[in-house]
């Protein structure tokens, strides 16, 4: 099965995500809202940097002997954005990673295998290899290239330069195997990409390299593949709205 861009077919047919339509108080997601939220994250990161770097620099300018206190300020300026990117990257949870359902006590190996088999059937051939090695499912969408994990997804957009980390999961996971958790999210994303973005909570938005260095090593090739997909403009067709 080819992994062509997810579309708004479901929404257009009146069959979009019911989960999204129930969130009537939330603004509908669109390319415009994603760009706006991205700019807010960039401004917030710059603000954090300024809030800590400027006092540190002032301290050194006034009295060089206050360098230890200034160093603490500089460390905060580095650490806060680092922690935010780490939190965003960790939300995704690749299959087989430290927080994966496949590694929980009492996980059923047989069920995990069945779920992975179905998930493998859902994704395309190239994406299947990537899924096996990285634990993340690559899905080309109209907003960008998505990487779907057990508890979240990363959207790589702006020609691969920006990554948005979304926290989204099966509402009642029960004892679902890891592969099924990803399959749930992948199907929902394919059904209604904008609805998916409306349901999910944006946990981080920033430069792709900031997310990459926080991902487990085996998941990084998936992010590289998503960057390539976004850069090659094989996704990114405009949504209306």
């Amino acid at each position, binding site marked *: *099965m*080819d*992994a*062509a*861009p*997810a*579309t708004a*077919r*479901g929404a257009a*047919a009146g*069959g*979009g*995500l*019911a*989960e999204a339509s129930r969130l009537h108080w939330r603004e509908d997601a669109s390319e415009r809202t994603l760009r706006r939220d991205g700019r807010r994250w960039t401004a917030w990161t710059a603000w954090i940097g300024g809030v800590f770097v400027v006092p540190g620099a002032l301290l050194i300018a006034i009295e060089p002997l206050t360098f230890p206190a200034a160093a603490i300020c500089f460390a905060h300026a580095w650490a806060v954005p680092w922690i935010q990117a780490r939190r965003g990257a960790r*939300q995704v949870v690749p299959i087989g990673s430290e927080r994966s359902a496949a590694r929980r006590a009492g996980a*059923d190996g*047989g*069920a*995990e*295998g*069945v*779920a992975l*088999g*179905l998930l493998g059937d*859902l994704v*395309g051939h190239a994406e299947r290899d990537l899924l096996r090695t990285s634990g993340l499912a690559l*899905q*080309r969408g109209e907003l960008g290239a998505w990487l779907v994990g057990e*508890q*979240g997804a990363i959207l790589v957009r702006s020609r691969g330069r920006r990554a948005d980390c979304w*926290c*989204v*999961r*099966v*509402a*009642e996971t*029960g*004892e*679902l*195997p890891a*592969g*099924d958790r990803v*399959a*749930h*999210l992948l*199907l*929902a994303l*394919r*059904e*209604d990409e904008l609805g*998916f973005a409306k*349901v*999910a*909570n944006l*946990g981080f938005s920033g430069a792709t390299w900031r997310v990459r260095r926080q991902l487990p090593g085996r998941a990084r090739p998936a992010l590289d593949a998503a960057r390539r997909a976004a850069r090659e403009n094989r996704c990114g067709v405009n949504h209306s709205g």
Partner: protein
Amino acid sequence: MGRLIRLDRTGHSTVAEWNGTDGDGSAVAVEAFREELERGMVASVSYADGTAEVVRELPLDAELVVLRRPIAGG
């Protein structure tokens, strides 16, 4: 041959199978489909181009219909 499966703790379970649009199999499948939707499941049909669509009536011409649970923001 159509198949209705539910993603569950076993990986997935076959809820119903049917052959064509006529016959007992399809009637049983339609009834099972409605029961699953009443239980809050979401039905999805995947297409060859990698897209999917939410369905609220069982498409008897589909090869595979997947029942999934609702998703939520974390």
